[in-house]
């Protein structure tokens, strides 16, 4: 029963995004959308989160349209940009989605 976790809050403002990973299981995926994409501009903010995700077997994606809209450069190779078609695929590939 794998799960797609969509995050939409800003990592720069919300303390609890970092806690959220503890609620994910191996095989789950995380998709960054809206303000959650802003953090990919900083080479530091997401580094430890992404390393932990990799160690836990959780893949991380970022919505390309939301990056483009905000003019943000994604500096992380292990945070894969997907378009809305990719978002749809992620929804299909996992049994359920949770919008945090």
């Amino acid at each position: 029963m794998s799960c797609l976790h969509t995050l939409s809050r800003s990592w720069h403002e919300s303390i609890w995004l970092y806690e959220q990973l503890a609620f994910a299981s191996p095989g789950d995926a995380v998709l960054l959308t809206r303000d959650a994409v802003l953090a990919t501009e900083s080479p530091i903010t997401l580094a430890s989160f992404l390393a932990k995700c990799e160690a836990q077997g959780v893949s991380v994606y970022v919505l390309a349209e939301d990056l483009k809209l905000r003019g943000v450069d994604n500096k992380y190779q292990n945070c894969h940009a997907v378009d809305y078609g990719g978002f749809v695929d992620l929804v299909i590939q996992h049994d359920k989605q949770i919008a945090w």
Partner: protein
Amino acid sequence: MKINILINGGLYSSQSAYSAWQFAHAAISAGHEITQVFFHQDAAGHGNRLATVMSDEFDAVEMWSRLSVKHAVPLVLCVSAAERRGVMSQEQAAEWGREGDNLHSSFAVQGLGALLEATLAADRMVTFA
């Protein structure tokens, strides 16, 4: 696959419904069926036909309506959420003794049971909080 969508974010002030609208188009293009779009909480404002933006802004109410008509996607407002925020059909307004009505004809007003039915019947549910 059959997908139902739940939206919570308000008209104009949130990106959540805009994201949902883009998602719905992508899902339909990929051959999936959107069985219902349910507008809960502040999202109930999307059924207000009086909402008016500048001609170069995204007209959310109109764009949802077009999606619904073109692809036969049911748009459902949560009845309590809509009434609390002043979105009402002629029948609802009469029932509450309110003067006027503003429900857009592309939207239906139903209870949260309709959301649950759609959720249990669909293969996937996607929430835009």
